């Protein structure tokens, strides 16, 4: 705990800013029903009402309160992106560590399969799959998680490869330890820093990716409040010089900036630590 406080004190302003942003978003997402004045899908006024009394940030194209939608959007967009990233890490991380530790044909087979998947542009592949499978939230999560797990696999495998060739892993092999023990006790603990950083980066990627799909009308479907689709629905306002549609887009940008700042600092920090040893 003390170390953590010390670590925070040594952090640059950008990382502090990033952490503050993340905490802020988590609080908003958690207490969404308390913070917002109306229900998520309630139509409470006429269309495109201006900012002001009653509707702090005006209303959207169907007359729903913009501020309420923004607050609930935090919950939905971040929640779905987080679950997707976790799933991608479970799949990609496990297979990556296993391929690196086992080596041989298992590694070859898995890596070739991943190579093929990585040869497809993810957005295009996602569009194709969503056309066929439809756009429900579970399908969205699974499709993106599987596509993204190939990237996680690549990194996890590369990191674990460097560790699996270390003498201490050979010692464990020669001692007769099983695969899971070697992954859990020898490889994983030493792969953590890059994997943690990658989690942040992958979260940003998934978050932007889902927002992009929603923006195209192919991600999270109405009436669920979601930032990407909010931009799309209210985009016409831009041509009148109204910045309302930039709010959800800005909300997306701010969180990604925050996470990226923290990850950047973390990478810097762990790279520095490695030099000292």
């Amino acid at each position, binding site marked *: 705990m003390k170390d953590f406080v010390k670590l925070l004190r040594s952090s640059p302003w*950008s990382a502090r800013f990033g952490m503050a942003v993340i905490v802020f978003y988590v609080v908003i997402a958690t207490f969404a029903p308390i913070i917002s004045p109306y229900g998520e899908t309630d139509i409470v006024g006429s269309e495109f009402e201006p900012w002001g009394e009653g509707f702090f940030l005006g209303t959207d194209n169907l007359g729903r309160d913009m501020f309420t939608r923004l607050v609930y959007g935090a919950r939905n967009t971040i929640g779905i992106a987080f679950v997707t990233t976790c799933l991608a890490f479970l799949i990609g991380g496990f297979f990556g560590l296993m391929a690196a530790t086992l080596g041989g044909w298992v590694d070859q087979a898995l890596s070739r399969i991943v*190579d*093929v998947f990585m*040869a*497809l*542009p*993810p*957005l*295009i*592949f996602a*569009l*194709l*799959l*969503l*056309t*066929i*499978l439809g756009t429900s939230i579970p399908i969205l999560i699974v499709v993106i998680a599987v596509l993204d797990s190939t990237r996680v696999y690549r990194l996890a495998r590369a990191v674990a490869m460097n560790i699996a060739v270390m003498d201490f892993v050979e010692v464990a092999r020669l001692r007769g330890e099983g695969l899971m023990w070697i992954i859990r006790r020898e490889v994983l603990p030493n792969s953590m820093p890059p994997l943690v950083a990658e989690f942040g980066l992958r979260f*940003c990627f998934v978050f*932007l990716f889902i*927002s*992009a799909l929603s*923006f*195209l*009308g*192919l991600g999270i479907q109405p009436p669920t409040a979601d930032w*990407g689709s909010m*931009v799309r629905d209210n*985009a016409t306002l*831009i*041509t*009148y*010089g109204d*910045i309302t*549609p*930039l709010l959800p*887009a*800005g909300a*997306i*940008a701010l969180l*990604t*900036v925050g*996470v*990226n*700042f923290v990850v*950047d600092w973390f990478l810097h920090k762990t790279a520095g630590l490695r030099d000292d040893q």
Partner: protein
Amino acid sequence: MDKILKMIAQRLALGAVTLFIVSLIIFLAVQLLPGDLAEAILGQAATPETVAAFRRELQLDLPAYERYLNWLFGILQGDLGRSLANQREISELIGGRLLNTLFLAALAAAIAVPLAVTLGVLAALYRNSFYDRTVNMVTLTTISFPEFFVAYILILVLAVNMSVFPSISNVSSDLGFWERAYRSILPALTLTLVVVAHMMRMTRAAIINLLASPYIEMANLKGIKRSRIITHHALPNALSPIINVIVINLAYLVVGVVIVEVVFVYPGLGQLMVDSVSKRDIPVVQACSLIFAATYVLLNLTADILSILSNPRLLHPR
């Protein structure tokens, strides 16, 4: 030289195999649907005529492998099938749009590549300077922005407030180059902003990695001028990583056009694909996927081959 030719032939063969598997995946993805394809896609409310048209178009009465072979040979002869939505030839739908998309990507690349490489190399050379740190923060921020955020900000500032560029990119084939470029400038700028940040960070990382090599220290200790160290010692070895960075980002760019085209209502392939996805017009989506995927695969293949060709260890084998 033999070894190089062999390696390149290997990569080309691998690329061909990848393309083949990609086409297989794109085709087979449709088979993932359980039950009757026509009803699953068109829904319960479809009229018998549309279901029949759908079955005829996808040749659902034939076995899967036969359909795949027909599809593949059709593509090889330039026949991409017909759209379900409006019965038009897909090749006809795609032709002009593909050119538009390539024009947009090329325009963005022409601005982005020189800019990103120059900025990246400078950031690496003046590492930890004020310039480097500023650039780091700015690019970190830009890569965090969704494309549509950048696009709408540009529209707000340059199209709505200042009215210097059109907010809708209304291009058609009869326009001259400059008029076309003028109308495409906002989408191109959006793409540039997004891709420059990535490309620059990667260039910077590659150069910093290189400058830490012992042979650069050796050049310093030989009293070589800084400018010459950069041009004679760093650049010949930096070529391979920089080419790699550029091509990877070009691949990213070609795919990144999808969202930008939608924002600016740019008549390109991406917009067609998104439209077709919402109409569940499967043959068109498959055709577009195949074109995007093929471009992506080919660009990555180019990166691979160029980096082989710029590696001195491989160029001059023992």
